[in-house]
């Protein structure tokens, strides 16, 4: 059973992430711990404000717990959580990072609404939390059904890392999985190339997955602009790849993809 940390707040991104996570549990053996971070500097009316520190913290924790409960009740989701929500007090990224390391989670999930602004996406995935996380990071951009996943390969993708992390998470998954080998081409139409264009690395990757008992549906090599290719991936419910090391066409592709993206490292 995979142990996932699902970060929730009372906003639209969390509402989508919560519903997506529950759908994901239909396709993966996964259980979630709901987590919420309270910023102690936020101007919040809580029963404990102004009291001694311990009571003050209890007040903030209580407010956080109510926030998560309210969200879960509003969304009327039907999935199982591991115990009560975890309420963290302090810096958002640092507290979550500590929790991921300390409590041995295997997957981090949070909602982040889709913008096509590449800088927003770049800032997110290069934040301290994302850079230093021990787990794959799943960014939920839209509410879709994860019945079909796609492994996004191409220049800069470390296929050994992608393969091993993917198998750890998805070896018992019931969704179908395709491979898309992306080649950047800004001019002209989206083109389906011969699979030999993916080179020996693609063949090796397919072989490794198959030797580990994973059946890949379709394997395609595509060239096109990031926006065109991102649009093509709308038919999937999950895209899985490694962190892009720098600002690149693949980063632009990942920023534009409207479906949830899982980044491995």
């Amino acid at each position, binding site marked *: 059973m995979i142990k996932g940390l699902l970060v929730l707040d009372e*906003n*639209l991104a969390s509402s*989508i992430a919560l519903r997506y996570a529950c759908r994901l549990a239909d396709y993966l053996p996964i259980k979630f711990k709901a987590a919420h971070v309270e910023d102690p500097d936020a101007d919040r009316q809580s029963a404990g404000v102004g009291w001694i520190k311990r009571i003050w913290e209890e007040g903030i924790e209580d407010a956080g717990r109510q926030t998560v409960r309210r969200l879960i009740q509003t969304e009327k989701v039907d999935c199982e959580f591991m115990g009560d929500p975890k309420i963290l007090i302090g810096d958002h990224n640092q507290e979550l990072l500590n929790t991921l390391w300390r409590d041995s989670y295997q997957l981090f999930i949070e909602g982040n*609404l889709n913008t*096509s602004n590449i800088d927003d996406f770049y800032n997110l995935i290069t934040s301290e939390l994302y850079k230093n996380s021990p787990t794959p990071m799943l960014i939920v951009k839209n*509410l879709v059904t994860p019945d079909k996943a796609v492994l996004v390969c191409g220049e800069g993708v470390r296929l050994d890392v992608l393969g091993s992390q993917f198998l750890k998470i998805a070896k018992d998954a019931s969704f179908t999985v395709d491979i898309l080998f992306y080649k950047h081409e800004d001019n002209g139409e989206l083109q389906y190339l011969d699979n030999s264009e993916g080179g020996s690395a693609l063949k090796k990757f397919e072989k490794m997955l198959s030797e580990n008992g994973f059946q890949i549906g379709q394997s395609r090599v595509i060239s096109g602009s990031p926006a065109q290719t991102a649009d093509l991936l*709308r038919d999937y419910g999950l895209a899985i790849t490694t962190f892009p090391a720098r600002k690149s066409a693949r980063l632009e592709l990942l920023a534009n993809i409207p479906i949830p993206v899982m980044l491995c490292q």
Partner: protein
Amino acid sequence: MRILFAVDDQTYSGSIVPEAARISANTWADITLLTVQSSSNKLDENKADILRQHKDIFLSSIEGGGFPYYASSTPEDFEQISSGWQGCQGSREGSKLCLLKIRSGDTVREIINEASEGEYDLVIIGASSPDCQWKNESLDLPQKVAEEAACSVLVIKRLRPTGKIIGCLDQSQISQESLEMINQLVTLHQADLKIIGLTGPKGLSGKGNVEAQMADILNYYTARDINAWITLVEKQALEDFVSSASKDGIMAVWMGKKSMFAKLFSQNLVEKLIENSQSSVLILR
């Protein structure tokens, strides 16, 4: 629901009759096919014939023999009324109205007057592509109708397959009728719906209530098995986004009185949006 379908004798009007028929039948709407003649002295028989032909195509485009509209077996006569002439159709109990009307005067004014006097919910109007005009009429007629009508307006420039309806819905104010209208378009085109949220340095514009409303809209569409995608667009980038997105799918923009989009979209932008779009634009009110 009441729909006003403004037509003339050109292909951009004739070719969209089946689309108007499907929208009307799907929404179970009373519909009026309207054309305008300049003189008020005498009924222009050519215009009357055009309306009769459009009505035949309208009825034959609906599966099930034109239901829920009544198809008379004889050509329709016209009688004079205060605003012009109106077809004397027979009727059948339980059927919806499919009226033919000819008004006299300035075309833009008469379409807008009919929309307001008849308390219609939607005006459907075709336009030439790519220049977006009506033949022998004042410049930018479809844009003027879209801007000035008190109700929603669907401008169809060219019928082309589209996989996307892009909805700038101004989540704090959108009406149920507008949501249903978009639902109809999505269903007719078997398209995905992209819901645009405006964002700025502090996140979603009008946070809190707006976020809850967006979540409700998302729930509304996902419950109807519609693929609905949220995309955030920065306020400053809205104009660029709209001009590029309108080449890609049908734009639906909520422009009600309290709409934030109405404040951000200059009149000029609405004109540009309709002018630049390669398919259809739905202005919701």
